């Protein structure tokens, strides 16, 4: 069985099944060959120029971290908002961060969100705007400050990610940032097989509602909630304190709490 794009699979059971069966589906020899090819590719790029990677703590990011460390690349960057992150994720990141991690914040907090209500659980095509605001901005600044030639990402085609023009696994944007996806052709099962074999930990967000569909990111950035109310409901089940702290700033949060009858 092969899983499709994560956006189409809300059912955590399918993901769990894939994780449980990953090592059966991906024999060690196949995984070793894939790893060797990927690590060799990173080493080749490292010989040609300065390479670092972006890390979020997510499943693909953890697989990328393993590959990059095997290739001797330790410098990496994590972009977060200054005040809209899940506390549980920050605690997990603190416990599991790569030693060479650079953490950069963007000044997005509750007062900012109050002024930009369209960024609360943005739907459809608006969802990726959070990536532009946080990850892309931080990656651009990190790329320039460290005079990088390549910034490796954990993007994969099977996850529906853009990795470059057809036939390519890299692209340079108008700002001169070259993003490279060494895992572009890895399947979900190959990522899971690596995680299982090497005991790579997964952050708590995957145990939350639609965790494998949503992945990492700030709490208001949750995608495919279908409505703002559904977004608040999901967030409340994950960490009510996040919504309680938002309510004095966000009328929508206060209104949802009143209608939901929660305090």
């Amino acid at each position, binding site marked *: 069985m092969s899983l499709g794009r994560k956006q189409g699979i809300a059912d955590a059971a399918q993901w769990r099944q894939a994780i449980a069966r990953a090592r059966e589906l991906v024999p060690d020899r196949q995984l070793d060959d894939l790893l060797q090819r990927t690590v060799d590719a990173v080493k080749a790029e490292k010989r040609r120029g300065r390479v670092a990677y972006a890390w979020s703590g997510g499943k693909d990011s953890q697989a990328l971290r393993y590959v990059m460390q095997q290739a001797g690349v330790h410098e990496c960057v994590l972009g977060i908002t200054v005040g809209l992150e899940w506390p549980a994720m920050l605690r997990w*990141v*603190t416990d*599991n961060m790569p030693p060479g991690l650079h953490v950069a*914040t963007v000044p997005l907090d509750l007062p900012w969100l109050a002024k930009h209500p369209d960024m609360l659980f943005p739907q459809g095509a608006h969802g990726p705007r959070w990536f532009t605001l946080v990850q892309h901005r931080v990656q651009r600044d990190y790329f320039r400050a460290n005079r990088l030639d390549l910034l490796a990402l954990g993007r994969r085609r099977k996850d529906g990610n853009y990795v470059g023009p057809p036939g390519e696994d890299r692209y340079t944007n108008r700002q001169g940032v070259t993003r490279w996806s060494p895992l572009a052709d890895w399947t979900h099962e190959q990522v899971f097989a690596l995680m299982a074999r090497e005991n790579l930990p997964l952050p708590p967000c995957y145990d939350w509602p639609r965790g494998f569909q949503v992945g990492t990111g700030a709490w208001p950035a949750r995608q495919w909630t279908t409505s703002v109310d559904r977004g608040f409901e999901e967030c409340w089940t994950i960490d009510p304190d996040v919504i309680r702290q938002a309510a004095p700033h966000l009328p929508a949060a206060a209104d949802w709490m009143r209608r939901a009858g929660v305090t």
Partner: protein
Amino acid sequence: MCGIFAYESSTPPDPELLVEAAVSASVRGPHGYGWVTRSPDSAHHELGPVDPGKVRELTAAVVLGHARLATVGDWQDVAQLQPITAAGHALAHNGVVHNSAALGSHADTDSMLLAHLYATLRAAGHTPPDALTRLTKAASQQAWAIVVLDADGHLYAHRRYHPLYRHREADGVYLSSQPITPSGQLIPEDRPVLVQ
């Protein structure tokens, strides 16, 4: 996650090296920063990323600094910035305590609990290394780096997994979360270390 920087000698630090150490801490803790010094004694806590200009002005012979990424408590509360002082000791912490409730309820953050526990252990007569060992045994943590500027005027460190480099330079010893000179060596894990 957070970053730690420190310096100990009998003379003022090289401003550029201290800035390098502080910046290496800052990349792990962008919410706020601070320091406590001895000879001359001072303390400073401020929200936002480390200001290299202010670090460059430090002339104390012993400095303990910290850059915070808030994982517990209010990221905008200056009172929660580190180092945290308790009974004349100052403590800088990188890590997450998973059994805070067992350590006490009289503090807003897990790092504050550690500072108070260290002071309690010292008041009970334990030496700085013994107090650090007992502290890290009592606190349930997956990974940590802790540096204490004890009231005896010296720096002590204890770490597991999280990086903390010691640099022995001509003017003194520097600690930082990333190597800042070729002399940088990770301090040993799982045992208390007198920094100097």
